[in-house]
Structure formats: C-alpha cells, structure tokens
C-alpha cells in the first residue's frame, strides 16, 4: 500500500503533525496486523510527561505508522539532516514485527538480525511476535520461540516483547501493544524534550552575545513547540510560543538591536494575517537569517491562536488578540513612514474583523463561566468599536466626514487620534473627475430648530489640509526654506504636540465642525501664497481625492474597498460595525457603551431618513443620560431626538423633549434658546396639536404647601389652600387653569380629590403663590398629589412635591438620592376633622324665673374650637312665653367665673384658656387679620345687639370665645300649662345678670311686654297690670279648694337656632327649657274665729326668692260672701305691718280681719283671690330688674 509522502517541513507546518511510529517489518507481516493497530488510532488513554515532567493523560493521541522502508523515514534518518530542525519528526517508537516457527531458524537467522536492528540506533523499540500457528504443535513451537525472544530481548526492567496470535481469540493484546507504543513514545519524548531544552538553554544563555542569531533560537524553540503540539501537549506548546514572543520582543526592543527590515511592504500585507500563519513562509526567515517583524509577530500570534482554538479557548484568543492588535498598531505607528499610506488603519480594521469572526464562530457561551462570557462580548465590542474608529478616520480622510455624526463619542475617538503621517502624502490622481466630485460635496447644513443647541464638536485632531500639505512630495525634499515656512505655519510641529493639542493655532476654531472646508480657504492666505511660488498647495478636495485614490488602489481587502468606494458603502459598513459593537456591549452588560453606540446607529438612521428607528434609539440614549443626570452629554442628543419627533409628528414626545431641554442645567443652553423653546411649547399648545397632550414637567415645575402646621378644616367646610409653585420656565407662562390633586393618606378607598386654583395663574420664573379653592372635603388627612396646569391642548403634570424649600429654591428638582430613607416623608397639608359638635348653647339660668315679669334669659354660646364668624342666632319661643322679636339683646363675654358657677365642662375652660393664650400671642388660626378686632372690645361692657325678627348676628369678636346672649322674655302663668312641683321649689342660686346694665328707659322695654301680657294674661286686670307697672313685680297665687294656697311653677321653652359656618351652612338647634315660678308660696290659716262671723286670716308668704324683698303694700280681694272688717280696702291688719321686709327664703305672714258677708255668700264655698303687689327694694339702682346678683344678695 502506498504510503503518503512525508510532507515538506515548510508545508508541514500548515497541518498539525502526527507522531510517527516506525514499523520494522522483518517478516512481511505488517499488513496482517496493520488494520488492528490503525483502528486504535487515536489512542484514547495515553499518558505522557509534560514539560514539567508530570504525567498527563492525553486523550486522542494521533500517531502514524510508517514502515522503515518508506522514503520519508529514510530521509529523516539521523545524520542526513540537522538534528535540531528535524529531530522532533523522527519516529517516536520502533515496532519490530517478527514471526518464527522454528527454534533453530530463530537462533541462527532472526536473533542476529534483531540484534542488529535493536542496536543500530538509539531508539525506543519493541518486538511484536506474530504467531500464525493453527495446530497445537505449531502453537507449542511458537510459544517456545516467543519465550526465547522474551528471554533474549526483554529485561526485568522493561518488557519489550509481546505476542500476537493471529488466529487466537484474545484481543487484549492490541491494548497491550498500544500501551507499549505509548510507553516508547513517552520515553522518546522525554529524551527529546530534554535534548531540545538543553539546546534552548544554551542558546538563551548566549542571547546577549553579538553573534547570537534569533533565527537559530527560533528554530529550536519552535521545534520544541511542534513536538509538544504533536504529542497533544498544547499547553506546553503554547508556553513555548509565549516565551518565544517574549524573547523576541526583548530582542527587538534591545537598544542595540540590529534593525532589519520591518516588512509589511508586500502586496496584500495591509490585510491582517494575524490568524493566518501560512501566508508567509516563516521558515524562510530562519533560512535567510532575517526576521521581518511585521510578518513574524503575526505568525507568532497565529500559532498561539490556533493552539488556543484547539484548546477550546476562543475567549482567550479574543483577549490576546485585542491586546495584540493594540500593540501592533503602535508598532505600525512607529514604522508609519516606511509603510504604505494608511496601512495601519486598514490593518487594524481587517485584523479586528478577522479576529471577531474567528472567535465568535468558535465561541460557545454554554461551556464557560458567565464572567468569561461577559468578558468575551466586551472584547468583541471593543474590537468592533476599534475597527469602527479606524473606519471613521479613513472615511474622514477621503471626504466622507460629513456623514459622520459629530457626537461626543466620535469626536472623542477621532479628535484624539492623529492623522496618518505617511512620509509623502499621496499625489493627485490623474483623473480630475474625482477631485470635482469631492468639490461638489456640500458642507452639512447647519441644524435648524433645536439642533442648534448641540455643541459643534471637532472630529479631527488638526487641520487635514495642513497635515497633508506638509507631507507633499515636492515640499519634503529637504528645502530648508519651506521647512521653515511650514514650521512657522504650525507652531506644533512635533507629532506628540499634535496629538496632545488639537487646536490648530492659525485657524479660528469655530470653523471646524468636522472638515475645515471654509477654514481651509480662509486660513492664512499669506502662508499659502508663499508656497504658491514653489508649487500650489493642494486644496482640500484634492487632498481627499488623492487619499481616496491611494487607498482604493492599495486596499486588498474587498469589503473595505467596497466600503470606501462610495458613501453608501461606507454608511452600510459603518452601520454594521456600530450595530455589532453596540450589541456586543449590551451583551457584556456595558450598557453605557452600548447605549452610546446605539446613539450612533440612530445617527445613521436619522441621516438616512429612518426617523422612527432613530427616535427609538435616541430615546434610549436620552433615557440613560437623563436618568443619570449627565446633562452636558444629554444636550448633545436631546435636540436630535426632538427633531426626529417633530418630523414624525410625535407631538407628545416632541413637547416632552422640549420640557427636558428646559429642565437641563442652565449651562449648556443659552437663555434665548430657552425662551424660544418655551415659545414653541406655548405655540404648539394653543394650536396645531391634533390631540390633547399630557406632559410630565416634574423636573421643571415643583410645588409645595405653606410651611407650618397643616390647614385644618372641619368636615364639610370649604376653604382655600395656599400652594407655592416654583416654575423653571425661562419666562412667564400663562396657564389656562391650574389644578392640584389632594391624596388622602391611610385610606385605600376614595383616592384623590382635585382642587382648582382660584384664578388662571401666570407662573413667573421662580417662586409663585397660588391659591387653591377647597370644596368641602371628607374627613381625613390630605397630602399634595399632582399639580396639573393646562395650556391650550397641553396638560402639564408635576409630581415633584418639594420637601425642602432649599432644594426647590434653586428651581431644580429635589434630590432623589436620599441616603437615609427611601420614602420621602409626606407632609400633610390639610386636615379635615371628623364630624363633631362645633358649638354649644346652654342657658345661663333655667330656674327661678318669675312669671309675669320681663326676665333676662342668658344663652351661653360656646364655640367648640370652631369659628362662629358671621353666625346668626335665631330665637323663638314656645307657648305662653312672650318674646319681643325686635329688641336689643346684650352680649358679653362669658367669664370663667361665670362658667364655673354654671358648672362648665373642663373642656370649655381649656377652650377659654387656649383662646386667651391665643389672644395674648396674637397668633391664631385664620384670624391674623382680625386680631385687632378681637382685642378691641371691652370685656366689661356688654354689647348691644339689635335683634330683628328674633335673629341676632354675633359680632366678630365672639366667634372664638364663649359669650352670653341676654334676651328678655316674659312668661304668663297659665293654668293649663302650669305644672306643679312636688319637689323643693327652693331656688338654688340667684340668677346671674348682665353686670352693668346700661341705662335705658324702662318704659321702652316694658311697654311692649305690657301689651303682650294684657292680651295673654286672663287673670290680670287692667288695674293689677297697672299696679305691676308701678311696682315692678307681680305675683299671683291661687288658693286651691282645699284651702291651701301653693305657688305654681311653669316650664316654658325657648327655641334657639344658630346658623354658622361658612355661608351659614351649618345649623345648631336646641330647645331650652325655662322654669318659671311665682315669688311667694302662699298658705292660709284661720287664726281665730269670732262668734260674730269675724275671723282672722293669716296668710303666710313663703319667699321663693333668693333676695330680700320689701312688700310695700298688700291687699286681699275677697269673693262675694266675705268682706273686710272695718271696711278696709283689703289691707292687712294692723296696717303698720307694711312695708314689710322679707329676707331671702324666709317666711312672713300677714293678718287680715274679715267677716262673712251674708249678702254675697254662696252656700259655704269660698275662694280667695290673692293679689299682692310689692315693690322691690333695690338700693343700687332704681330701674326694673328681674334678677338679683350675688352681690346684691350680700347687701344689707
């Protein structure tokens, strides 16, 4: 069977080599066992020693069986070629296949031959004895021969023989052979590794000798690496390459390194070969003795990469590749002058793409840790964005700069990256059409609308024109004068300075958005004129055309050439790279990198008119910058987003972008711009919006309630709420209306209430006060919710409720980063109390009022922590109680003393105290404007109030303080209504009275009463009434048929109705019972009876009054049948008894002498009508008074 030719060394490096096992086929038996052996390849469990002499289990050890007769092996025999370079390819094991079925034959022929083979060379061998015996005798003989072989060749240390029975059933022998082969390989490998390592050690020791040649070192080292790779010890192989790379770098960077050619000048070199180790015959370097750095470094990397790929570590390739590309790009920069135009950029782009392609094809996220996955995608993203940057540089160079967005991302990448610096700038292409095409490129239109807010960023480190002209062939020939001119042209001549400082000194920086077209023509004409005398300098289109021509002719990578040959191609390629970079960054959790690149994708979409896609991506970018508060960056993107939204008629989005622009830090946007944005919003709001739009202006408008305690309202009361609104708009903004939601706290139901402002407000920039009308609310605590303003079709919502006025006074949003608590404390602005009693009206006196006399009735009106402002008291009377509906009532402050006397509740006293405290502090709720009014009134003087139709309005001062309203009533004694008290009718205490009753005409008061009583009182005659007018008090009594005369008590009712609260919406009604009584309890007794029908009648008067009274006169009216003795007119006997002073609650008696008068008598029945009129002795004043004060009681 034909054996494949052993590959040529140079070619062999292409494919992984296999370990060779040599077959010494002595008896032509190889073919019979070959199938069985080759079936076991690759060996499953081979244990080999690695470089550190540790046993390593190698799975899939691939070996190749080659017969010694093969031409390849013969060439590889020792001595024929360099041991160093090819030694590792020699067979690692020798398999000697023999058979023999005769002892003599063995002894005479085979044994000597085997001895020769075994001793011929220092190699690892073992003998496979193949037995073809089928009969028992033959088997016996072969066994005997085999034992002889074993005895001759095997030692105790090492078994070197094994026997294969071709016809036997045992198959385990093949496994034994495999083990033996592996053993041989292991021994050979160890020996060879040791040998090579020794060589490497020797060579590296001499590294600093002048005659040392890296190529030799490389050959040895790489041989070692190959050997490891063949033995599947790839880790060790990789380590060899790593060491090789390190030593190479040291060699190259050594100060006295002989500078051989860098390379990179061959055709196709611009296309990176970092993963393709076969492009250049590297062994050729070794042969030539020169190593070209450009090729060699790429070759080394490709070897490392392929080993890593075989080790299933594509992520590591990615990582190493990234740093390799960066390092290599730096090396290329150092040699830029010797390399073709823009070689570095092209190489980086191709290298990045090749690396990304190769690694992502082999990468599987399933078999590595999440961190590795993250890292891998990060590297892919980095590679893509690196390629993208270089692509932008090339595009900018050939005049596609207008198609590159001047975003911070691109600007940062490009303006810090120097222009290419070839030794000579490429010359103009022969065809002028290219130049004309470049001339026709119009500069980008200046953005309209909000786009002008974006800062114009530079995309170039310096002016390309200057950079190019400096390197013109004709100028760089060494003309000293021109050099001076140029150095004058640019003060920053050195490349380092160029990189550090991108501001071109002679050019106005404002003209440099990207390509300095205008700047180029206007810049330093005098300098250009000087150059004119030698050769006209290239104009920018010419520079670009020249660059384009040079690039398109030199680029060997088809994709890149397509990308650079047209604007569309560039944009496509650019978009692809950007998108891929963004995707990978997103996958690696680098959201900021990803989102920024999304913005770049959006820019391309925008330019191509795919506004929808652009807006979506821009929104992402804006959301990122906005949420993190990087306003300087946001202002670069937001205007573009708003342009998209405007063009898409996404008015809600557009307006909200405008709002966001307004709410940015004032720095990046001028005041005029802010004003114009506001004008735009207002214009749109008042027309042009198809549907109403709701905008969140929380960042722009903030609001807060007044400081201090919350406004307290009673349930059902309307009110007003003062809200402070901070407007961040640059100018006044006129709202159609402003409303605010109030949110109840601690209640799940009954969500929010909307309250509106009193009038349509104009919000000025900064602080505004807005008054909100509160309709009657349900009980509960309320906090501020959402402020909503309406302008035309636009609804502005603000959720930002300021907790601290310090934060809001700046106009900015309050800080959301609260270190201590996540929840902002909600401040209650409104407390609506639960329904409760708001006012109480009690009578000051209920008992001891006298019948038939005008009596002052006091009503204590006590507000219970509620203002009685504007309250009206309406009084009406029950039956038999006369009340003058138009009278002058008196109102005085209810003093605590009086309140105590009337057994007030403690809360009332508290209320009073609070009120007095409030008076003293002058700090009361809702009363600040009326404080003076309260303090004005004279607490000693009751105030006269004019009552109309039974109604009286309480004055202002009485709204928070308990007061007593005195009104006059008069009760008639009526039999039907009289009730008889069985209890003690004793008066408990004297009724209070207005302290200083102002002087007034008694007649005016009583006259009305008189007429009223004359109509109602059936028992009062005109005389007696007149008497009562005279004497002031009238008492009436009846003597009951049983002879005892008792006084009568009557309950009368007084209905009090009070309207109070805001717009008198609340009503308080109470019926007050008043107990009226007669002044005396009267009883009669006949003291003595004469025979003549005369008798002496004693009338006992039991005073019911709590004060002393003087009875001025008394007369007894008799029924017919009785007559006074002595024909008196009914005066008591003796007459001097009168006037009689009766002290309080005491008894007195009057005697009357009467006789029966037969003329008028009726059969034994009699009735005494008693009428007593007394004049009350009032020493203090002489007016009519119905009550006796405590003070009067103590008077003598």
């Amino acid at each position, binding site marked *: 069977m034909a054996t494949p030719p052993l590959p040529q060394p140079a070619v062999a490096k292409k494919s992984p080599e296999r370990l060779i096992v040599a077959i010494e086929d002595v008896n032509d038996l190889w073919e019979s066992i070959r199938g069985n052996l080759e079936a076991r390849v690759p060996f499953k469990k081979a244990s080999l020693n690695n470089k550190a002499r540790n046993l390593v289990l190698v799975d899939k050890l691939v070996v190749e069986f080659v017969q010694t007769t093969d031409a390849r092996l013969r060439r590889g025999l020792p001595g024929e070629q360099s041991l160093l370079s090819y030694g590792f390819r020699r067979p690692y094991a020798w398999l000697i296949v023999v058979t023999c079925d005769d002892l003599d034959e063995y002894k005479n022929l085979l044994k000597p031959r085997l001895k020769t083979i075994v001793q011929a060379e220092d190699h690892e061998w073992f003998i496979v004895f193949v037995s073809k015996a089928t009969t028992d005798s033959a088997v016996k003989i072969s066994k005997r021969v085999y034992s002889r072989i074993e005895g001759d060749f095997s030692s105790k240390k090492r078994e070197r023989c094994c026997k294969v029975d071709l016809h036997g059933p045992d198959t385990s022998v093949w496994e034994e052979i495999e083990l033996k082969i592996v053993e041989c390989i292991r021994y050979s490998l160890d020996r060879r590794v040791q040998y090579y390592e020794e060589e490497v050690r020797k060579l590296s020791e001499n590294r600093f000798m002048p005659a040392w040649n890296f190529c030799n070192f490389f050959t040895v080292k790489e041989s070692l690496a190959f050997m490891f790779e063949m033995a599947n010890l790839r880790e060790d192989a990789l380590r060899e390459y790593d060491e090789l790379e390190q030593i190479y770098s040291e060699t190259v960077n050594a100060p006295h390194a002989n500078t051989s050619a860098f390379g990179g000048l061959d055709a196709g070199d611009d296309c990176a070969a970092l993963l393709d180790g076969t492009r250049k015959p590297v062994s050729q370097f070794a042969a030539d003795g020169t190593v070209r750095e450009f090729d060699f470094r790429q070759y080394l990397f490709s070897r490392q990469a392929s080993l890593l790929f075989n080790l299933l570590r594509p992520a590591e390739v990615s990582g190493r590749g990234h740093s390799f590309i960066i390092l290599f790009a730096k090396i290329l920069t150092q040699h830029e002058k010797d390399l073709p135009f823009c070689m570095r950029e092209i190489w980086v782009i191709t290298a990045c793409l090749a690396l990304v392609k190769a690694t992502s094809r082999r990468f599987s996220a399933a078999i590595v840790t999440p961190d590795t996955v993250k890292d891998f995608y990060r590297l892919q993203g980095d590679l893509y964005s690196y390629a993208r940057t270089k692509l932008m540089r090339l595009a900018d160079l050939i005049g596609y700069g207008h198609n590159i967005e001047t975003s911070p991302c691109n600007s940062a990448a490009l303006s*810090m990256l120097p222009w290419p610096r070839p030794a000579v700038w490429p010359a103009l292409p022969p065809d002028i059409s290219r130049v004309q095409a470049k001339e026709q490129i119009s500069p980008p239109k200046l953005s309209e609308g909000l786009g002008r807010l974006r*800062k114009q960023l530079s995309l170039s480190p310096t002016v390309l024109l200057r950079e190019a002209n400096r390197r013109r062939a004709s100028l760089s020939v060494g003309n000293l004068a021109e050099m001076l001119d140029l150095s004058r042209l640019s003060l920053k001549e050195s490349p380092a300075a160029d990189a*550090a400082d991108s501001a071109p000194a002679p050019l106005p920086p404002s003209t440099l958005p990207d390509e300095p077209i205008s700047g180029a023509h206007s810049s330093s004409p005098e300098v250009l004129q000087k150059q004119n005398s030698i050769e006209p300098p290239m104009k920018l289109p010419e520079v670009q055309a020249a660059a384009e021509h040079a690039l398109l002719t030199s680029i060997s990578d088809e994709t890149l050439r397509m990308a650079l040959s047209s604007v569309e191609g560039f944009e496509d390629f650019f978009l692809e790279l950007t998108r891929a970079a963004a995707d990978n960054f997103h996958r690696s959790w680098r959201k*900021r990198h990803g989102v920024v690149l999304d913005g770049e994708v959006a820019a391309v979409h925008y330019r191509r008119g795919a506004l929808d896609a652009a807006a979506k991506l821009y929104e992402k970018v804006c959301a990122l910058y906005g949420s993190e*508060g990087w306003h*300087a*960056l946001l202002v670069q993107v937001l205007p573009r987003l708003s342009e998209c939204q405007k063009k898409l008629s996404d008015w809600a989005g557009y307006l909200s972008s405008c709002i966001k622009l307004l709410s940015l830090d004032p720095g990046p946007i001028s005041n005029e711009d802010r004003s114009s944005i506001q004008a735009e919003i207002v214009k749109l709001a008042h027309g042009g919006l198809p549907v109403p739009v709701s905008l969140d202006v929380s960042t722009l408008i903030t609001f807060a309630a007044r400081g201090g305690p919350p406004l307290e309202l009673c349930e059902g009361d309307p009110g007003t709420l003062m809200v402070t609104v901070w407007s961040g708009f640059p100018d006044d903004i006129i709202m159609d209306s402003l409303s605010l939601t109030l949110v109840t706290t601690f209640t799940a139901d009954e969500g929010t209430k909307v309250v509106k402002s009193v009038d349509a407000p104009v919000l000025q920039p900064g602080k505004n006060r807005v008054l909100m009308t509160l309709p009657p609310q349900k009980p509960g605590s309320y906090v501020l919710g959402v402020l909503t303003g309406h302008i035309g079709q636009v609804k502005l919502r603000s959720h930002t409720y300021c907790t601290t006025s310090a*934060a809001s006074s700046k106009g900015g949003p309050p800080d959301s*980063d609260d270190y201590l608590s996540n929840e902002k404390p909600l401040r209650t602005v409104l407390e609506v109390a639960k329904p409760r009693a708001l006012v109480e009206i009690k009578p000051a006196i209920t008992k001891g009022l006298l019948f038939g006399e005008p009596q002052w009735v006091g009503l204590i009106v006590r507000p219970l922590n509620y203002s009685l402002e504007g309250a009206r008291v309406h009084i009406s009377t029950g039956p038999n109680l006369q009340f003058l509906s138009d009278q002058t009532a008196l109102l005085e402050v209810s003093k605590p003393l009086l309140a105590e006397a009337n057994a007030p509740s403690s809360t009332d006293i508290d209320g009073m105290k609070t009120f007095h405290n409030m008076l003293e502090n002058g700090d009361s709720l809702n009363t600040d404007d009326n404080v003076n009014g309260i303090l004005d009134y004279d607490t000693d003087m009751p105030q006269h109030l004019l009552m109309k139709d039974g109604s009286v309005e309480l004055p202002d001062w009485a709204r928070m303080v308990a007061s007593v309203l005195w009104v006059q009533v008069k009760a008639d004694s009526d039999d039907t209504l009289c009730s008889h008290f069985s209890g003690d009718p004793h008066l408990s205490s004297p009724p209070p009275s207005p302290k200083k009753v102002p002087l007034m005409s008694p007649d005016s008061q009583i006259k009305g009463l008189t007429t009223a009583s004359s109509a109602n009182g059936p028992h009062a005659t005109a005389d007696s009434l007149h008497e009562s007018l005279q004497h002031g008090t009238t008492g009436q009594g009846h003597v009951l048929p049983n002879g005892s005369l008792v006084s009568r008590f009557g309950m009368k009712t007084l209905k009090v109705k009070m309207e109070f609260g805001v717009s008198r919406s609340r009503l308080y009604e109470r019926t007050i019972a008043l107990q009226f009584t007669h002044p005396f309890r009267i009883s009669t007794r006949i003291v003595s009876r004469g025979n003549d029908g005369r008798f002496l009648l004693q009338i006992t008067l039991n005073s019911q009054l709590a004060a002393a009274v003087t009875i001025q006169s008394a007369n007894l009216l008799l029924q017919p049948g009785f007559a006074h003795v002595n024909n008196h007119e009914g005066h008591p006997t003796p007459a001097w008894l009168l006037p009689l002073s009766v002290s309080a609650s005491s008894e007195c008696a009057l005697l009357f002498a009467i006789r029966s008068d037969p003329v008028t008598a009726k059969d034994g029945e009699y009735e005494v009508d008693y009428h007593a009129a007394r004049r009350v002795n009032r020493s203090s004043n002489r007016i009519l008074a119905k009550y006796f004060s405590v003070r009067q009681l103590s008077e003598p």
Partner: protein
Amino acid sequence: MSSTACFVIVSRNDSPIYESEVGTAPKKDEAAHLHQFILHASLDIVQDVVWNTNNMFLKLVDKFNDLLVSVYVTAGHTRLMLLHDSRNEDGIKNFFQEVHELYIKMLLNPLYVPGSRITSPFFDTRVRALARKYL
C-alpha cells in the same frame, strides 16, 4: 508640560455631582464634553472592577487613547473619578484621599442633601488646590 485632567464626583445613583477641569492644559470648550463622555463610559468598567477589590482606590480602570481614568470609590459608593494623562499613581491616590475627606466634610453639612450637586465654592477651591498639589 501641560497636563489634562478632569475630576468628577459621581453620586451613588450615577449622576455627576461635581465636575471640574483641573488640568493645566489650555481650556477648550469641547474638551469638557469629551472628558465627560469618557468618564461616563468608564462607569461601566468601574461597576465591574469595584467588586473585585477591597481597596477604595481602584487605580487605573480605563484608557482612552492617551487619557487614563483612575477611580476611588467611597463606602457609600460615591465615585471620585479622575481623567488624567500623567502616571503619578501615588499623587492621584493622595489626591483622592484628601478629596474624600473634603467630601465627608461636605456630607456633614446639614444643609447639604447627600447626592445633590455640590455647589460650594469652598469645596471647589480646595479641590483645585489639591489638584495643584498632587497632580
């Protein structure tokens, strides 16, 4: 030799609360933009690095062309970020530590709400002085 440096304090919720260009290089309008862009992007890397070390000073975390980003993270996860082109690591460390002290003093101010923008001119002056001293 002029140096470029841009110092930014980034609050816990990633928003910049203090910015200053502390380099000696001539001021350029657009440079501030670019510096902010670079610093903002490197927040991505900081969030990875910050959990891998116990130190507050994270040293170099990012590179952008010739510019380097060094970061110092306080216990409250406020990040002091410096964009610089010099490689004076000790100086930067000292600078960070002293600014951290200043920042803590700032936090002690009851009128300063943590996480809001630092507007104190005193703070600004002190930071610039420190930058001159150490950078």
